């Protein structure tokens, strides 16, 4: 049933946009039903849980790390799940009445459902990883909910996201350490084995991380300020996230992990210290607010502080009191948020300065507000009073906790601070009620809202009263909570009247003090001063935020330059520093170089250099684009000749073909551009050129040619044939050994081609204009009839033999591409699929062969041999190479079409009736 309850929330998120189309803002009602069903599903398990069992459902999730998708329900998660779903029902049935018809409800409802589902998952998660995932979803979805309230919501939402995001990271850190040390990600097991598995150092790491995660989420000092900021969200969101659920996630986390820290005094002191400080600070800030939502936000900060402090006490009774306060707070705070929303809607303002005497016009609203405010203030006979008394007992019991050395003063100090907090709480609660509803009625035409609008607030207000009168109803759940956290069972005995106890005395002091503060509020504030004690946390946050941004801008500025020198200069300098620095850092590097091997330079190299040097210098001095391009082609030819002499026939062939195709593709583009002349300073260019040239030359001289063949080289040469069946080692590396690299590389080609296609038709050619004149074309076409089939035949042969002799998919693709170029220049139409189809087919075939390897061979891209009749033994790497071939052909065709305007559309008049030549890959050509 647990999984079903989470799944149904997910379904709710999915159907919400559909429902909104028909129901608009009234979608809230069916969604409230979803919450109700989900809650009932969980309640079916409740009897087992209340009798002490833990309900668990588990599926294998991440097998490699043995992570289970585990949901579990115990007392703790039952309490929080009921809050998430119960308050959810109320808020979702409140939202339709509250929301403006013009509000964009589709997104609100969808994200709200997503949030609620994640929140439910969070409290049901039985696995650490799952806990983190749900935790992050609540962070992100609450960001969307706050930011969705328009431009005014963006900055508060960003603040909330950054702060709670930091907490999320801290949680990840804590979970990683915990999981590594305990060797499990199951929460129950991890906590059970933790005492033996965690060292004091581990505790010192995990503790602060958990505290940061919880304090950011639950808005404790100094992270509290995001919560009042988040009040820009619409009221249903505030009522749900910022009163009942999201901010309680931190409390849940502290409860969940507190067994790890029972004996750690620092944990308890941190929680109690910060918690009580936050309780008083928040209550005091609430007293100063005029905007009712801000007041409630600071009130929430304060109440969360009390809960944190109670968890910090670390006794069974204090955890039970914390659980009770969690429930009581959800009841009265959600009520108050909804009522403030009602006042806002009816009276047009939620500012205490504008509101007065509303009880005359809206007596029921006034009565409900009074009831909820009394509960918040801790007045009998409401549940808030019971919770407050239990809190006082718990604080007084601090000396009994196992981490203290029976220090009596600690209990009195904690209780005294709690009394001050309670007094301030009473004062601001009274201010809400008297401020808005008493005094003269200043507005006209005010009416009680409809019952439908009021009903969601009536339910929790009455529940607060009922549970105050009959608090024993809650004994079971709060006992189970504290027991399931891991503390010994203590039978709670919740009651309004405990006799003349010390807690009663403290209550009376708090109430008296609170009333005095309420009536002397002005003078108190004057005495404290309007500006102090203001939190500087928001300013600190903003300063860190903006200095981070400006640091990023400063770092990024160098990349904004249009100058190539600036772009590459930094990289170059860094490389230089790394290289030179490496000499001094790497041991042995500076001891002297190995001698250069003999035969590294051979006489034939001189011939190449004699050809290369003048060509490159001419290229540098070339004054026209076409001349420069032709010279660049020559450079390529010389280098490919050299590669051939260096024993790299495949590379030489590839370079040769690429040079030819580059000239063909680039010539039409460059010939349209005027001849060129130096632009930048030639001095600067000269200096850069000399520096780069000398450094690169030196680097090659220093770092290469000083060792024998690498072990990898020996491995490939010795094993290639046996392992792959191919004798062309370069090709076997491409398609067999390092197929994944090659897959990445053809993906780059694919992307480059897509980039060209996406840029639109950019051919410089004008319509009706060909590279050659009609007469020249006619001559060329005759030759082409011979050349094109020959080229395709060559491509087929090169492809086929690639595994054993120079050739392969890249080379064959370039040869076939050359055939396309010849056809294009001579004006022959080639009937081929669109380039994008060829490209996609190529990449698809390459990927498909990889998957084939996965299925049949065991790993992605693993080649295996197949015996084919007639052809003999073949390997599947040939299929992969076919993909390579097609991508290269697709790229060349794209370039020819887009850059040169060749072969763009069907030139039917040119089509002749020759039989189509077929090459290996059924690429059809109609010359």
């Amino acid at each position, binding site marked *: 049933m647990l999984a079903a309850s989470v799944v149904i929330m997910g379904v709710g998120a999915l159907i919400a946009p559909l429902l909104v189309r028909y129901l608009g803002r009234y979608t809230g009602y069916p969604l409230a039903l979803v919450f109700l069903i989900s809650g009932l599903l969980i309640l079916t398990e409740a009897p087992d849980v209340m009798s002490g069992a833990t309900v668990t459902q588990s599926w294998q999730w991440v097998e490699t790390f043995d992570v289970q998708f585990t949901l579990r329900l115990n007392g703790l998660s039952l309490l929080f799940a009921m809050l998430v779903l119960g308050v959810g029902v109320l808020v979702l049935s409140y939202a339709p009445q509250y929301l403006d018809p013009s509000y964009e409800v589709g997104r609100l409802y969808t994200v709200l459902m997503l949030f609620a589902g994640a929140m439910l998952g969070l409290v049901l998660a039985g696995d650490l990883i799952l806990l983190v995932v749900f935790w992050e979803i609540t962070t992100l979805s609450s960001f969307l909910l706050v930011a969705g309230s328009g431009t005014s919501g963006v900055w508060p939402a960003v603040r909330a996201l950054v702060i709670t995001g930091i907490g999320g990271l801290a949680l990840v850190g804590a979970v990683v350490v915990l999981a590594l040390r305990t060797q499990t990600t199951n929460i129950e097991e991890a906590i059970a084995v933790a005492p033996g598995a965690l060292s004091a150092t581990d505790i010192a790491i995990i503790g602060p991380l958990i505290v940061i995660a919880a304090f950011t989420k639950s808005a404790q000092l100094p992270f509290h300020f995001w919560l009042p900021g988040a009040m820009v969200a619409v009221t249903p969101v505030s009522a749900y996230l910022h009163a009942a659920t999201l901010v309680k996630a931190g409390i849940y986390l502290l409860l969940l992990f507190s067994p790890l820290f029972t004996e750690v005094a620092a944990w308890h002191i941190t929680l109690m210290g910060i918690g009580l400080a936050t309780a008083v600070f928040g209550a005091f800030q609430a007293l100063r607010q005029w905007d009712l939502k801000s007041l409630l936000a600071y009130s929430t900060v304060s109440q969360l502080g009390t809960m944190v402090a109670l968890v910090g006490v670390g006794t069974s009774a204090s955890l039970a009191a914390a659980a009770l306060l969690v429930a009581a707070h959800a009841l009265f705070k959600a009520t108050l948020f909804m009522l403030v929303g009602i006042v806002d809607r009816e009276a047009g303002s939620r500012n205490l300065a504008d509101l007065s005497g509303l009880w005359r016009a809206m007596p029921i609203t006034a009565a409900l507000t009074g009831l909820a405010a009394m509960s918040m203030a801790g007045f009998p006979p409401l549940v808030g009073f019971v919770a407050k008394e239990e809190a006082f007992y718990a604080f007084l019991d601090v000396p009994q906790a196992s981490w203290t050395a029976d220090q009596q003063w600690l209990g009195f100090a904690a209780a005294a601070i709690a009394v001050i907090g309670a007094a301030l709480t009473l004062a601001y609660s009274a201010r809400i009620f008297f401020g808005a509803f008493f005094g003269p009625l200043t507005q006209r035409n005010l009416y009680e809202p409809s019952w439908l609008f009021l009903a969601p607030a009536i339910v929790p207000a009455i529940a607060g009263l009922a549970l105050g009168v009959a608090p024993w109803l809650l004994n079971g759940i709060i006992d189970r909570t504290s027991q399931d956290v891991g503390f010994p069972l203590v039978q709670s005995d919740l009651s309004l009247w405990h006799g003349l106890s010390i807690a009663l005395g403290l209550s009376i002091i708090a109430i008296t003090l609170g009333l005095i503060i309420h009536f002397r509020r002005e003078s108190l504030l004057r005495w404290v001063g309007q500006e102090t004690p203001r939190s500087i946390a928001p300013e600190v946050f903003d300063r860190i935020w903006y200095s981070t941004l400006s640091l990023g801008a400063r770092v990024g500025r160098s990349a904004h330059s249009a100058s190539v020198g600036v772009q590459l200069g930094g990289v170059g300098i860094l490389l230089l520093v790394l290289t030179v620095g490496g000499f001094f850092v790497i041991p042995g590097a500076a001891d002297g170089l190995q001698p250069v*091997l003999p035969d590294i330079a051979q006489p034939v190299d001189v011939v190449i250099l004699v050809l*290369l040097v003048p060509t490159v210098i001419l290229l540098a001095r070339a004054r026209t684009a076409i001349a420069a391009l032709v010279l660049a082609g020559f450079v390529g030819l010389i280098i490919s000749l050299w590669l051939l002499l260096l024993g790299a026939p495949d590379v030489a062939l590839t370079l040769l073909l*690429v040079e030819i195709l580059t000239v063909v593709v680039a010539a039409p583009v460059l010939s349209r551009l005027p001849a060129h002349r130096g632009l930048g300073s030639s001095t600067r260019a000269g200096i850069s050129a000399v520096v780069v040239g000398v450094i690169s030359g030196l680097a090659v001289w220093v770092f290469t040619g000083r060792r024998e063949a690498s072990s990898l080289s020996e491995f490939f040469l010795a094993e290639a044939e046996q392992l792959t069946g191919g004798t062309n080692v370069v090709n076997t590396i491409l398609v067999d050994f390092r197929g994944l690299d090659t897959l990445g590389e053809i993906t780059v080609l694919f992307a480059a081609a897509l980039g060209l296609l996406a840029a639109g038709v950019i051919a410089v050619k004008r319509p009706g204009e060909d590279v050659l004149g009609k007469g020249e074309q006619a001559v060329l076409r005759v030759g082409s009839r011979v050349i094109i089939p020959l080229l395709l035949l060559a491509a087929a042969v090169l492809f086929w033999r690639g595994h054993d002799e120079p050739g392969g998919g890249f080379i064959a693709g370039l040869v076939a591409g050359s055939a396309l170029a010849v056809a294009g220049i001579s004006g022959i139409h080639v009937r081929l699929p669109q380039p994008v189809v060829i490209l996609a087919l190529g990449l698809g075939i390459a990927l498909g062969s990889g998957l084939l390897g996965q299925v049949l061979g065991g790993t992605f891209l693993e080649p295996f041999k197949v015996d084919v009749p007639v052809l003999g033994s073949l390997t599947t790497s040939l299929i992969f190479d076919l993909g390579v071939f097609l991508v290269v052909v697709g790229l060349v065709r794209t370039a020819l079409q887009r850059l040169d305007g060749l072969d763009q559309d069907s030139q039917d008049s040119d089509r002749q009736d020759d039989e189509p030549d077929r090459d290996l890959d059924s690429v059809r050509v109609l010359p």
Partner: protein
Amino acid sequence: MSLAIAVALLAGVGTWLLVRGGAVRLILGFILLGHAANLVIIAAGGTNRRVAPIVDGSAPLDAAADPLPQAFVLTAIVITFGVTVYLLGLVARIAKKSPGSELEEGFESDDEGVSRR
């Protein structure tokens, strides 16, 4: 040593073209730097063994060139082609859309008499 000289030359002139600016030089400089980088990788394999790494038994293995850098360079060349083509596309598009833009600066104008149309 011979490869070091060639790399120095290609990298130097490639840088010269890049830094002086202008669309055509940018592309040509890029091509030359590509050659230089490819030669560096080939040099890393050692150029003392210069027999093609085809292991059909016709030549002793210890004379064969290192096949791994060759495989790297082969794909690098094709990728250089892809990127060059893409750069050309960008240049052509910019030249077409906004004549006289930054990329076109630095070319001699017609009246200096060296333009070829």
